């Protein structure tokens, strides 16, 4: 699905990712943990194609295609979804309109006609119910005036609508109350299929109780310094990052 080799990335002369290697197979859920400012969101942005970074070395292959040569929107249409850590507001644009545009642009990329309105509305309805989203929310402008938790839920809703092959969820759990966390985790679990993958960035092992990862990685100072099973997350929760730092020295 996704294969990252020796990826080095800097921004304004400062190196942030310093040789990332990562292999995600179809059907797998990978968790990425690590202290603040170690480059987790940067990695997510680079995979998505944000062009404010200098990619000095390495490659990213997605479903056999060289991602680094593709535009942001083409990567999205190829099946990459990023659930943002800080979703942005788009005043005056309803979620319905936003989603319809996104779905139809992605369909256009694949040479398909726009989705018939009835099919689209049915899909909206289904996903809203799955994520227990109030009907009203879909008529509101994208993220405008949403609470922190509502924004995160809306990201998962969009993911469900777009049905990506690889979903990168950047701290989707932060800001969610316990019930919302369960709903979101449930939603993700329902979307898990043998042929799609998840990259879940989180600080808390709690989320991983619900979305059980196949592999947990620790990102530290721009490098993946340790990978393991889900017990690694438990260990991190107990011992903190000092323990890893100590081992590295």
């Amino acid at each position, binding site marked *: 699905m996704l294969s990252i080799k020796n990826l080095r990335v800097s921004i304004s002369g400062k190196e942030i990712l310093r040789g990332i290697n990562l292999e995600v197979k179809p059907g797998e859920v990978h968790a990425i943990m690590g202290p603040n400012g170690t480059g987790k969101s940067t990695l997510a942005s680079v995979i998505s194609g944000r062009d404010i970074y200098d990619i000095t070395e390495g490659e990213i292959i997605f479903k056999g295609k060289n991602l680094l040569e593709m535009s942001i929107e083409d990567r999205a249409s190829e099946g990459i979804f990023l659930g943002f850590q800080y979703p*942005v507001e788009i005043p*005056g644009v309803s979620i319905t309109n936003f989603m319809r545009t996104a779905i139809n*642009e992605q369909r256009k990329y694949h040479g398909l006609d726009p989705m018939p309105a009835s099919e689209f509305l049915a899909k909206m309805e289904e996903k809203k119910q799955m994520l227990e989203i109030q009907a009203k929310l879909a008529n509101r402008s994208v993220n405008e005036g949403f609470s922190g938790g509502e924004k995160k839920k809306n990201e998962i809703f969009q993911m469900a609508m777009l049905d990506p092959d690889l979903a990168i969820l950047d701290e989707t759990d932060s800001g969610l109350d316990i019930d919302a966390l369960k709903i979101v985790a449930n939603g993700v679990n329902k979307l898990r299929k043998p042929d799609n993958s998840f990259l879940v960035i989180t600080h808390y092992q709690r989320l991983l109780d619900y979305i059980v990862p196949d592999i947990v990685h620790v990102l530290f100072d721009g490098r993946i310094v340790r990978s393991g099973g889900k017990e690694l997350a438990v260990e991190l929760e107990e011992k903190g990052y000092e323990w890893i730092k100590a081992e590295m020295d």
Partner: protein
Amino acid sequence: MEKDPNNILDEVTQGEYKYGFYTDIEMDTAPMGLSEDTVRFISAKKNEPEWLLQYRLDAYRKWLVMTEPTWAHIHHAPINYQDIFYYAAPKRKKELTNLDEVDPELIETFNKLGISLEEQKRLTGVAVDAVIDSVSVKTTFTETLEKQGIIFCSFSEAVQKVPELVKQYLGTVVPSDDNYFAALNSAVFSDGSFCYIPKGVRCPIELSTYFRINAANTGQFERTLIIGDEGSYVSYMEGCTAPMRDENQLHAAIVEIIALKDAQVKYSTVQNWYPGNKKGEGGIYNFVTKRGICKGNNSKISWTQVETGSAITWKYPSVVLMGDNSVGEFYSVAVTNNFQQADTGSKMIHLGKNTKSTIISKGISAGQSSNSYRGLVKMTKRAENSRNFSQCDSLLLGDRCGAHTFPYIKTENKTSIVEHEATTSKISDDQLFYCNQRGISTESAIGLIVNGYAREVLKQLPMEFAVEAQKLLSISLEGSVG
């Protein structure tokens, strides 16, 4: 059996009704330049009564001693008023035989707007062989209106049919010496719409210039007069979203609206005249005076405009709130791209007690364009307990364009409240990244964001207009970022 007006509208909007809507009047042009003779020539051509000729001549004499205003935030080469033809009888566009002969760029725009092939032919002057029975549709339409006593025709027709009404109201809202361009229009106006809604009548259909004979040929000095008699209601739409080309560079229109006691008049327009090319060459100079008067108590006038065309737009649709409890509204989206210049806004003159006005202006600038809001809110001494709320927002695309806000507020009483809010914003990289990440191209993302930004105004438009206007906004900004 009475026909359901909705059915008629469907019939009219779905059928290919628009072709027959010109009359083949022999080409006839006044000599170039402006003089008393030109004015007399125009009036004679139109077979006008003596009082109207005198009205024109009076305006012409006033115009002679006036000077072009210089206060607007616009720049253009001097206009040579002797270098213009002031009267050309409506003429057909050059007949082409095939759409292949039309500028491909224009065709592309038509396709993006979703304008049908047949309609494209009509707009570009390609000969259409299958002329459907447009006359009957038009007749049904007129009959529906006539049954209710509504008069809706061209201004010239009105002068012949209902001269007393025209005489009673012409120039009562915009005096012939109101401003330089108004004086010019009053002297040489070509044609436009006339609309009268009788007492207590609620006009059952949106009155669109689409349905009016010769609508495409109103000329460069358009004159429109709308009268809502006591307790009446009308929604009037003018303009069209398809790009309008015209060899005449100078346009100076006047629209007057009169709302008597308890009447409501809603005026919506989409202006998409040729804006000039990407280098800023060519394009229409559009100097318009639009004003309404809420003459009676509890009357209401609302202006909604979507301005995307013209090289220069100079336009301040205004409302004089004379009746007590009257309401004035102005909703505007003005888009400027490339080298376009817009200086537009509104004036709300509160004369009556408890009057209320709202101004919502959304300026969107891209390229190297200049977009100014200019507004006046005046609360006179008599206008006790009146309110105005103004919201003027500017959205900048790129950093070579300019947005300016010139609000003027005059309050002569202590019980009225005037609120003014202004914001300037940009489309952020984060917003674009967010949209791109969902698979939305930058071009579509800009269209989406801009339409969201203008939503408050667009939702004021009649349904059939709103959808087209949304597409138009996106198209007008194509290539402006990236």
